[in-house]
């Protein structure tokens, strides 16, 4: 048989299953990657509005309107003014805008004046400019028929973060048409934000937050916008449509010192950045740009969202806004999250919480949808790492009380201790401690956890508490009293509250420091009076076993400190110092991820259910198969009817095979290699499924794994043993695998047949082929099955063993047992078997008792001393059909009617010596032709068929 290379045949089944898989995978990828269909349209438009102190200065604003497709004059929708942060453009908020629009709001985003493609200059949320611009946009919305209006007053909310958040606050104060606002991570007093002082001083005494101020100023510089459509450097040859026609001239004419800042804003920055101190004019300008001035006019329900990781606009700014708005009786709510100008958007759980709060706030106050949002307070606390995103994770907490309100439980106090220490203020504040890294906060929180905070030796004094006996959850603003002495009478200090872990070192929650400028200090610490320092507001857990570490440092990279070097002495009040730590018990917010736990339970349940169903179905099917017996053949070991097997690659191994094995028979399956013998046995043993036809073993339909196979022992396609264990152990393991009692194995008898002697205790790996073969026969005979199936059993055996095997097989087929032997050796079959089935090319060409098939033949082979003489003598005899020489001394003679006795007598009489007379059998003739000749020739098969037909 030629070697068949595997080749991929295109069958219907393959095409179908292949297509299904391809379609499923493609669908999955598409589903994952396909953007959800948009339910809104966007319109970009440059609107010209008039603002300025007198409302007569035109400015072009680059806007985009996100309009739900459902919006029309008949079904108008509420609107949201969505403002961007400093240095951004309308594109910075495109994602949020799309989200709101998807929820049925018309969203108007615009690039604030002085940024991106909008005209004008940056006035820092000036009531006359930016705020008035926004009022004009409300006018524009009010004129649209598809926006909901109540007697000409459009339903509109203002939402924004940072620069946009302050705008929302100031807009709500200035324009009563605003129905709700959601200001995020923004300021209350811009002067205090840039010039904080934590011991009660105003901005005039403040310590300049130079890094943040520089970043701010840089954000409004010469470029036309951080992420606008144009590259920051230079302009492309063709400008997008809708640009102010004079944009290029305008950009070219910008003062490089001030960029797009308005003159007064630019001058204010120069003023404060040069000296580190703010003039009254500068403070006035910053205050003009602060919501603090007009909070008392805000009537729009306000949701304040502030970041805990924010060294620019700390939580205290939102607290001030909260108090100011609450004083008007306006509904107001504040929520904190673990993000901000240092921390970015925060972890997903926080973002989800804020999104939920924002949506419910807007839905209720713009549309009256849903429950009225309660006046609670939520915050979150860093709890660890998310292994998936490598970011921090937080737990949300909610409470009915708000920090600073009268209901807050009494603050705990923890005493810190330590002697007064001398610390140096370096010239020009360099080297400086590092607490925060402004401008790097894009959600990379690890800096807070890895303890990036760096203190310079000699420039800080530390005061520790005793290890905390219990966990200490701080929510609010801690305070502490310190004392300081300075030779100049003045000192700029940074007070920080570290969480000191004896194992992992110190961690400054969110890198927040409280800067103080102390004046009128004595030169000796003994005369110094205690000063109360308000520490940054935090939500942090100090674990049991940790210590509080109060650090007073002289420099900080983020702030301007005195140029002249000095050495201070800092200490605690003589009466001891207690850190006041406000607490606010909150109940944990149920994490929306909890839903996945139910999914997990459902998946696990589904799998268990599926397995149980599969087991039950398998058991039922097996039981059904076990009872389907063809009574007619219940006592016949083997009936093969119309068997056909086509392999997956299309090769027809067996085309039609029918035969029967009765009790007491030793049936030989004879045929050349490739005749289909092995395939027939494979089907018989349930290793492959028949394509057509059936096999009945004791009347049972044979299917893979059918129980009736228990009554059958087999050796197919050579031995198969575990190579690393002994022959005996292999037999034992095999028998154990049958699950039948050991006594039934009749191991001794099998071992005797194997005749391996002591070799049975050696590992099978070391066996010769013949030894393995004998072991395999012994394995097949374990338990003395009623039907023994042996495939080429004498393969590898030596002649005495073959002779022994013949006896064994004949003896085996007594007691009602039967044996099926396959072989390609005629002599083998002839001498061992009672019956024979001759196969060729997948068909049975002859079967019956060996005597019938292998009958006596008229053809005999004569070995004679003189071939020509013998030919002559035999030629004269009557009834001789043919004579042909065969080899040197041989003659093949077809005696036809003449007996061999007569022929020999005639030869002897004629003086020809006769060495040997052997009858040549018909089967042998046919079989030899078959095996020796070209087996593809149809004639040879034909001959065998003739032979078979004679039985």
């Amino acid at each position, binding site marked *: 048989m030629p070697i068949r290379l595997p080749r991929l045949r295109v069958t219907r089944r393959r095409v179908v299953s292949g297509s299904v898989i391809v379609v499923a995978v493609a669908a*999955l990828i598409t589903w994952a*990657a396909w953007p959800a269909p948009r339910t809104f349209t966007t319109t970009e438009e440059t609107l010209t509005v008039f603002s300025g102190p007198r409302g007569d200065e035109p400015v072009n604003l680059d806007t985009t309107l996100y309009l739900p497709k459902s919006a029309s004059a008949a079904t108008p929708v509420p609107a949201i003014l969505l403002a961007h942060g400093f240095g951004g453009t309308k594109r910075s908020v495109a994602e949020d805008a799309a989200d709101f629009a998807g929820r049925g709001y018309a969203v108007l985003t615009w690039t604030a004046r002085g940024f991106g493609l909008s005209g004008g200059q940056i006035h820092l949320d000036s009531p006359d400019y930016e705020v008035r611009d926004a009022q004009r946009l409300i006018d524009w919305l009010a004129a649209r028929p598809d926006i909901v209006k109540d007697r000409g007053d459009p339903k509109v909310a203002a939402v924004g973060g940072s620069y946009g958040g302050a705008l929302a606050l100031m807009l709500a104060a200035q324009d009563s048409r605003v129905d709700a606002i959601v200001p995020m991570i923004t300021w209350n007093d811009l002067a205090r934000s840039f010039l904080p002082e934590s011991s009660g001083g105003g901005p005039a005494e403040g310590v300049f937050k130079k890094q943040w101020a520089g970043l701010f100023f840089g954000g409004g510089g010469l470029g036309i916008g951080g992420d606008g459509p144009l590259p920051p450097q230079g302009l492309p040859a063709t400008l997008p449509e809708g640009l102010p026609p004079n944009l290029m001239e305008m950009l070219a004419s910008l003062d490089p010192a001030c960029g797009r800042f308005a003159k007064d804003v630019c001058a204010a920055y120069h003023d404060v950045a040069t000296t580190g101190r703010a003039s009254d004019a500068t403070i006035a300008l910053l205050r003009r740009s602060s919501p603090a001035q007009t909070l008392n006019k805000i009537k729009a329900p306000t949701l304040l969202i502030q970041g805990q990781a924010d060294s620019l606009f700390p939580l205290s700014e939102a607290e001030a806004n909260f108090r100011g708005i609450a004083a008007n009786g306006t509904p107001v709510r504040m929520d904190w999250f673990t993000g901000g100008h240092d921390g970015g958007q925060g972890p997903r759980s926080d973002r989800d919480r804020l999104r939920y709060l924002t949506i419910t706030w807007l839905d209720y106050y713009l549309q009256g949808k849903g429950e009225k949002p309660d006046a609670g307070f939520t915050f979150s606390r860093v*709890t*660890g*790492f*998310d*292994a*998936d995103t*490598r970011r921090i*994770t937080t737990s949300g907490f909610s409470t009915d009380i708000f920090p600073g309100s009268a209901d807050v439980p009494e603050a705990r106090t923890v005493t810190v201790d330590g002697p007064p220490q001398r610390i140096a203020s370096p010239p020009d504040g360099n080297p400086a401690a590092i607490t925060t890294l402004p401008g790097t906060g894009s959600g990379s929180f*690890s800096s807070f*956890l890895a303890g990036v905070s760096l203190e310079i030796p000699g420039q800080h004094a530390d005061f520790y508490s005793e290890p905390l006996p219990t966990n200490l959850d701080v929510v609010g603003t801690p305070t502490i009293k310190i004392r300081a002495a300075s030779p100049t009478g003045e000192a700029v200090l940074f007070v920080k509250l570290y969480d000191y*872990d004896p*194992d*992992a070192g110190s961690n400054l929650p969110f890198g927040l420091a409280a800067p103080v400028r102390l004046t009128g200090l004595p030169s000796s610490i003994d005369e110094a009076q205690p000063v109360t320092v308000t520490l940054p507001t935090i939500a942090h857990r100090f*674990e049991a*076993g940790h210590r509080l570490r109060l650090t007073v440092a002289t420099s900080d990279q983020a702030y301007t400190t005195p140029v002249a070097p000095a050495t201070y002495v800092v200490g605690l009040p003589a009466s001891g110092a207690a850190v006041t730590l406000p607490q606010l018990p909150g109940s944990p917010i149920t*994490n929306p*991820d*909890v839903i996945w736990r139910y*999914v*997990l339970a459902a*998946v696990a349940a589904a799998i268990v259910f*599926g397995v149980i169903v599969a087991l039950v179905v*398998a058991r039922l099917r*097996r*039981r059904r198969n076990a009872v389907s*017996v063809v009574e007619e053949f*219940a006592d016949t070991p083997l009936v093969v009817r119309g068997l056909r097997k086509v*392999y*997956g690659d299309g090769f027809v191994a067996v085309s039609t095979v029918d035969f029967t094995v009765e009790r007491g028979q030793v049936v030989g399956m004879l045929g050349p290699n490739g005749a289909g013998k092995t395939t027939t046995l*494979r089907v018989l*043993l*349930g*290793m*492959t*499924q028949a394509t057509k036809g059936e096999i009945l073993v*004791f009347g*049972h339909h044979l299917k893979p*794994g059918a*129980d009736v*196979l*228990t009554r059958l022992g087999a050796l*197919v*396609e050579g031995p*198969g043993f*575990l*190579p*690393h*264990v002994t022959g005996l152990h292999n037999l034992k*393991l*095999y028998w*154990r*695998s*049958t*699950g039948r009692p050991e006594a039934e194995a009749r191991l001794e008898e099998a071992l005797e047949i194997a005749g391996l002697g002591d070799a049975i205790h050696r590992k099978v790996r070391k066996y010769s082929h013949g030894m393995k073969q004998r072991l395999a026969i012994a*394995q097949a005979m374990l338990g003395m099955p*009623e039907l023994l199936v042996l495939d080429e059993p004498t393969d590898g055996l030596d002649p005495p063993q073959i002779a022994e095997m013949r006896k064994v097989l004949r003896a085996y087929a007594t007691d*009602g*047992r039967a044996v099926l032997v396959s072989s390609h050796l005629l002599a083998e079959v002839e001498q061992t078997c009672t019956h024979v089935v001759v196969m060729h090319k997948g068909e049975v060409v002859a079967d019956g008792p060996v005597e019938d098939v292998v009958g006596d033949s008229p053809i005999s082979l004569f070995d004679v001393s003189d071939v020509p003489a013998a030919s002559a003598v035999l030629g004269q005899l009557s009834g001789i059909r043919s004579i042909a020489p065969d080899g040197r001394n041989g003659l093949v003679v077809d005696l036809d009617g003449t007996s061999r006795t007569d022929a020999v007598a005639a030869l002897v009489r004629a003086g020809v010596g006769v060495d040997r007379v052997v009858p040549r059998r018909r089967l042998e003739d046919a079989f030899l032709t078959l095996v020796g000749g070209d087996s593809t020739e149809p004639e040879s098969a034909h001959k065998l068929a003739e032979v078979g037909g004679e039985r």
Partner: protein
Amino acid sequence: MTTSTMPARTSPVTTFSVATELRRQASRPRTRIALAFMLALPLIILGAFEFGGGDGDDDGGGGGAFSSLVDVATAGGANFALFTILVSSSFLLVVVFALFFGDTIASEASWGSLRYLLAIPVPRARLLGVKATVSVIYAALALVLLVGTALLAGTLRYGWNPLRSTIADQLSAGEALGRVSAATGYIGLTLLVVGALAFLLSVSTDAPLGAVGGAVLLQIVSSILDQIEALGAIRDYLPTHYNDAWIGLLSTPVQVDTMVRGAISALLYSALFFGLAFWRFLRKDIVS
């Protein structure tokens, strides 16, 4: 007409029990060597810490939670066990799981003993079920041996100390034991995906190496793809995406949300691969 001389054996016999297969696999040198190595590895790591000298703190950074576990590996038994899990879960245990699951059918096919098991007859579903169960048992045993040895050796050498971590607070030793157990269980679950894949390959090929290697290879490809952030949300569907989620067990309070998603992913993938393995094996022509 009835069967006469022989006892009729038409009622189903429970063939091929889990105990038998456990014994068959136990007789294999491969099983013994793999399990012995699980015992040896923690000792090798311990030796490396002992003789490696100097605690050169060359934390290259970027490892995040991982480098932090390295830093505190010798803080106590629980820390040492976690470190051992950390260094072995990404590759060694993958290979071990792939070996126990991928070799089991394919090696029988290559020895030729598979057909004799089927001719006993062991119903194919039963054969596969027993094989899978035994593979699970050995793989779990390997995991438990590794962690148990690490815990024992680490505790004997470094003491029964609280679990330290630079990303969270220390946990009492008793609590740490619970966390280590949970981490072990979770890793076992995620590795079950590798095992299931190896099992699927095992029923598809006669070459044990092919099944084992193929599963490991796909695991590596999945890990590489998981590093490519540009793939975005598609990465969430990679079978290895949540493999490190057990780190969440080290934080206070325990972060289990990612682990829950990882468990869902692992269960679904395992069910898919095992299901395919059964589907394929029950219909396959055994020609080896």
